[in-house]
């Protein structure tokens, strides 16, 4: 700031020493951030490059620097570690591909419904839809376990329609494999059987989410839709009534209004919801941990769970940290990609599209890149 230079240095002035007090005031949060965020991340990065076995401090002299060995073990070296990692990436990929779009669509529809002026018991529905989000995932998983056992409520209901339900949480059949076997394709054609990326054959990559994973996908959608509904609701309420009227005057029906007015105006919130959903579903852990992680033929294991398992159970802390960093990279790349896909096209629209609440939320989460949407 040029003004500072002109100001006399001595004799005070009302703003003298402001910088020092400023630093003092932010010191607690800077220290907390450093101690609980920056230093642990740096330490974890060091662990991912070391052969630390989980004994005493990772900085003790017996720990050696091994370069990228841990990363190589899970990405290029043939073996069980790479295979486990590959399988977990596949599982999580299908999870993300299904959870993120479905939870976004469902939460948007729910928000539009509970936002209607003429809805009886609005408060009840809002609370009901939000309820799963405030309940602990662990509790919900356990309830789901009862619902989805082979003789559970879910199978009883679909049994009433004459369908023989699967043993949900223990069924490792991939949905795509299952569908193919209905057409008589039960094994891989030779071209797809060769080990491919991360040691997993193309046939296995194409397996689709297993039945067990599908149950977890339903669970995730059930629990998170409420949270995102709340975000959409906030954004919907900031769309003024005059816009509704204007749309009405222009002769748009409800469907046209939804797609041409509501959704474009929700774009910043949409970005928030997609980003949060993407991050959350790549980090899925609690459900898998409660179910034991290794059940259903390894089809519900995820990188986050594998990072935990390699560290705490197999004492391969370096590999665990390496998995965590690769996961971090995945999330960043995918968020940037998604940001680019959702970018505004054409300068004119830019101004209309900023609804305040949503924009705030979006900027709070859009920490990865600058530029683009503002």
């Amino acid at each position: 700031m040029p003004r500072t230079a002109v100001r006399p240095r001595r004799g005070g002035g009302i703003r003298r020493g402001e910088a020092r007090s400023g630093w003092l005031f932010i010191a607690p949060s800077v220290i907390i951030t450093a101690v609980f965020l920056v230093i642990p991340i740096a330490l974890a990065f060091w662990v991912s490059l070391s052969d630390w076995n989980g004994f005493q401090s990772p900085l003790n002299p017996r720990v050696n620097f091994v370069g990228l060995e841990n990363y190589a073990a899970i990405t290029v070296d043939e073996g069980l570690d790479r295979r486990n990692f590959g399988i977990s990436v596949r599982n999580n990929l299908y999870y993300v591909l299904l959870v993120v779009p479905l939870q976004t669509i469902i939460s948007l529809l729910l928000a539009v419904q509970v936002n209607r002026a003429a809805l009886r018991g609005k408060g009840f529905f809002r609370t009901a839809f939000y309820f799963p989000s405030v309940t602990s995932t662990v509790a919900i998983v356990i309830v789901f376990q009862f619902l989805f056992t082979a003789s559970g409520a879910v199978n009883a209901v679909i049994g009433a329609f004459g369908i023989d339900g699967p043993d949900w949480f223990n069924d490792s059949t991939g949905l795509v494999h299952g569908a193919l076997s209905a057409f008589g394709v039960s094994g891989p054609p030779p071209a797809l059987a060769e080990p491919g990326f991360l040691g997993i054959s193309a046939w296995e990559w194409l397996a689709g989410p297993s039945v067990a994973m599908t149950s977890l996908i339903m669970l995730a959608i059930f629990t998170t839709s409420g949270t995102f509904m709340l975000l959409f609701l906030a954004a919907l309420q900031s769309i003024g009534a005059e816009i509704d009227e204007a749309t009405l005057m222009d002769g748009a029906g409800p469907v046209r209004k939804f797609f041409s007015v509501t959704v474009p105006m929700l774009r910043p919130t949409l970005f928030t919801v997609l980003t949060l959903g993407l991050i959350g579903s790549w980090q899925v852990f609690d459900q898998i941990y409660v179910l034991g992680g290794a059940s259903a033929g390894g089809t519900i294991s995820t990188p986050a769970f594998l990072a935990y398992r390699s560290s705490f159970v197999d004492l391969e802390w370096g590999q665990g940290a390496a998995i965590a960093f690769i996961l971090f990279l995945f999330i960043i790349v995918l968020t940037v990609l998604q940001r680019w896909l959702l970018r505004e096209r054409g300068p004119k629209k830019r101004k209309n599209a900023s609804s305040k609440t949503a924009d705030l939320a979006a900027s709070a989460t859009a920490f990865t890149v600058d530029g683009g949407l503002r």
Partner: protein
Amino acid sequence: MRTSQWSAAALAAGLVVTLAACSSGGESGDGDVQTGQELTMLIGSSGDAETTAVQAAADAWAAETGNTVEVIAANDLVQQLGQGFSGNNPPDIFYMPWDQFQTYAAQGFIEPYADELANAGDFLPALAEQFSYDGQFYCAPKDFSTLGLQINLDAWEAAGLTDADIPTDWDQLASVAQKLTTGEQVGLSMGREYARVGVFMNQAGGSLVDGDTVVADSPENAEGLAYLQGLIADGSLKFPQELEAGWGGEAFGLGKAAMVIEGPWINGAMANDFPDRRFISVELPAGPAGPSNFAFSNCWGMPVGSETKDATLDLIEFLTSDEQQLAFAEAFGVIPSTESGSAAYAEQFPENAAFVAGVASATSPVAFQGASAALADFNVQLEQIGSADPSTLLGTLQTNLQAAFDEANG
């Protein structure tokens, strides 16, 4: 202005001090004295009976010696151990599971104290060997268990079977399992894991490691799996997951399986959860290559360089004494790990004689460093045992085990 600046500084400093105060802690002066030590013990308990018995024993020792012992029953023993060691704050004494022992010893986590015990020579040789790494006896076996065949007497009698029908070989097992299978119950069940299935592989004459070579894909192992596949095809063997039970004992208690293969821990579980179940435990039937069984044991682990070593050694001597082990045996069904203790046990609990008899043919499941990951993968592969070719399952195991073996020895 000045005042407010300084008060701001003071406020900030005060906050920092408060936070720092929160984070420091523990580290009270540890003396060299044997009394007044505060030990923490982390156990992987099979249930209330075990936790109470261990706590009572620890309290008895503590009262006698003037120390205190806090017994913590872990939810997830291996994870909590890993956490303790990485946080540089391991428990003073803990259950060291057999399948993790080699890894922990190889990584230098645990103290090789066993030779310093007054009763070091009393343990069963097979167990002392299980808890030796690199030729050194590391830690005192806490107790041990073998597998037996549990038979639901009501189902047995309902199927018109008598004592003479108790199976002693594979064919007889297959035939009684078939007879016991009804619409409501399956003849035989067991955990779908190496620690059960492996017994059949061994009974067929197989093993996973023979000297310095990994032989997981041997035809004998395949024969063991093929036998189980035959039972599955007959419908007389189902795994607990398929019976909506958490483990074999639960399937047995619920009456969904007429026979299961479990260890002596099933007695406690039945007494707690299914007190009405009438059953006996008999020796496992022998396979084509003779009888074979697994011995499972935990040892009392101590972290390397423990500051409370003297007190802990004293506690371990107390806990592994014959009378204390027999008290544990009574409370939660484990077998004492000493020669004299196990002999006394067989006399005192004739209904569990089958488990003691199992020791004769028992081997320790393979557990070298890194093997547990390969075996965990095998357990996952076993989900396909109903449909897969045994040689495919074993081929994967062979590859993974070989890689782990090379790494552990290379």
